[in-house]
């Protein structure tokens, strides 16, 4: 197990370095001059040159990168020239919204997907299984914005029971916050459950064909006990990976969902940075999200290994 962690760590470092380099390049390639953006169109060439020197923009690209990387490693992601806010502060303000959305999406997706998967796996090919599997498959073809608009149409416009865009921070108005997050949370949960359901269903069907399940049946254990105790845990391995990847993805915020429901999350922060040409925020934000994704995947890999005895003992 320790050897496995070591091998994964050795691989992690170059991947993270490449991520920082690519992030730096992407934001650096965006059009426009940071100094002109800061000083305005009326700036004299002398002032621009002076600011270039101050910001280090006159240095070769690789020196700029090393300088930036040094700051990043010291916990300094830079400061927005537009708002004067540090990028870390901006992320700290936006991340809770995305995390709340993430928790709602995963809990909702699991609450819906896991029971349905178990019920389907018990009798694969039954009318119930075919109906649920069919709906899950069809759900994979629904774009997120389509689902969001449909939910707004039904629950906000026709029934009028939930607001479409009325975000308030949880600390200000807990109930209002939950009501405002209900539709975006439901949008993401409805996009999550088909993946959860399909993966767990197919793993569970193969687990239920194992000899030890037949053994448990022969011992006279109840169907509920066999399903929930003997079959669920060994069938959950792929599910952990799927949920892990989704969590890593949602760290970056749900760009579309946040845009439609006017939520001030990470996705909005990044998209606004693109529209407003806020290079520093884009760079810092993308780096945060990408590194978060890599690290979460690293943890998921280890978790997977820790749970699967075949990998833990290096036999698979």
């Amino acid at each position, binding site marked *: 197990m320790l050897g496995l962690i070591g091998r994964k760590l050795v691989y992690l470092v170059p*991947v993270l370095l490449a991520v920082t380099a690519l992030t730096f390049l992407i934001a650096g390639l965006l059009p426009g001059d940071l100094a002109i953006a800061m000083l305005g169109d009326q700036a004299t060439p002398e002032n621009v040159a002076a600011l270039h020197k101050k910001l280090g923009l006159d240095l070769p690209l690789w020196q700029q990168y090393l300088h930036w990387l040094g700051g990043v490693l010291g916990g300094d992601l830079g400061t927005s020239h537009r708002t004067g806010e540090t990028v870390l502060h901006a992320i700290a303000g936006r991340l809770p919204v995305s995390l709340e959305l993430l928790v709602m999406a995963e809990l909702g997706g699991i609450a819906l997907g896991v029971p349905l998967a178990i019920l389907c796996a018990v009798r694969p090919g039954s009318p119930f299984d075919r109906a649920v599997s069919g709906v899950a*498959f069809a759900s994979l*073809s629904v774009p997120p914005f*389509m689902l969001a608009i*449909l939910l707004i149409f039904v629950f906000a*416009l026709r029934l009028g029971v939930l607001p479409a865009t009325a975000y308030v921070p949880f600390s200000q108005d807990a109930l209002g916050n939950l009501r405002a997050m209900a539709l975006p949370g439901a949008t993401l949960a409805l996009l999550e459950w088909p993946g959860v359901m399909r993966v767990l269903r197919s793993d569970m069907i193969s687990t239920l064909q194992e000899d030890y399940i037949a053994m448990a049946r022969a011992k006279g254990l109840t169907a509920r006990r066999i399903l929930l105790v003997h079959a669920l845990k060994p069938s959950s391995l792929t599910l952990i990976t799927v949920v892990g990847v989704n969590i890593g993805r949602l760290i970056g915020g749900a760009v579309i969902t946040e845009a439609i429901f006017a939520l001030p999350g990470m996705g909005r922060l990044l998209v606004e940075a*693109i529209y407003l040409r806020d290079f520093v925020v884009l760079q810092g934000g993308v780096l945060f999200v990408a590194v978060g994704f890599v690290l979460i995947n690293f943890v998921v890999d280890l978790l997977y290994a820790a749970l699967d005895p075949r990998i833990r003992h290096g036999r698979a």
Partner: protein
Amino acid sequence: MAALDAVETAAPARRRHGLGVVFWTAVLWLALVFALALLADLLPLADPARQALLARRVPPGAAHLLGTDALGRDILARVIYGARASLGIGLLAPLIATLIGATLGMLAGYFRGAIEILTIGATDVLLAFPPLVLALAIVAYLGQSVPNVIAVLAVLTVPAVTRVARAATLVLRERDFVTAAQALGASPARVLLREILPNVMLPLGAYFLLLVAVIIVAESILSFLGLGVPPPAPSWGSMIAEGRDSLDVAPHIAFIPAGIMFLTVLAFNLVGDTLRAITDPRHAP
């Protein structure tokens, strides 16, 4: 883009005798959409860009089969011309991605070693970035045009294709016919082109159809956010985005393109998934 992950881990479809009614219905729907998109100029359609301020938000009826939008433009014409953009981008981006990804994946899977580590490492790096943010940033930088949208979506799709091609190649290189070709003294290039490529093409072909579905959705998201097909050319995503403002009074403006797009994406997924189940290397004899 999240659909990509779901597709990769999707459960194999049930084995049936024949391909089934659903499969052929999906093929028929795709044929219809393709035919309409290709023949759009020959059909007696209204001008998709012509505005009619006196005929705004007309519900579906005799004068306008699918109604008109908030500017009085004919929705049927816009949906059909929008299909051109969606299908054009939806086919070209995966095609480019498949050409690049298949080459990289086959080389990585066949030669292993440093090439494989570098290739897979590169896909890991690219996959770490939020794809939508990357696409938006690059389109904002390169400028909003159809070729740029195709290029961005193709680049973002390469890692997934590379992985599928590599996985298929890893299985194939251990098969007897490959060993036999190598024993007969075939060069690596010959083995790759004559033995591996024909067998990789089957799973990649099925995966291609699933990618078309993913890219049609991705393009619609870019258009929905205003960074896809540049206006005034119609695109399904921008039509839905425009319909959002009239959702209360004229829901058909958003829901008609949404429904047609859903059926098209679903059809590609159905056909792709059925073919994938047949050609899955894990199920090969």
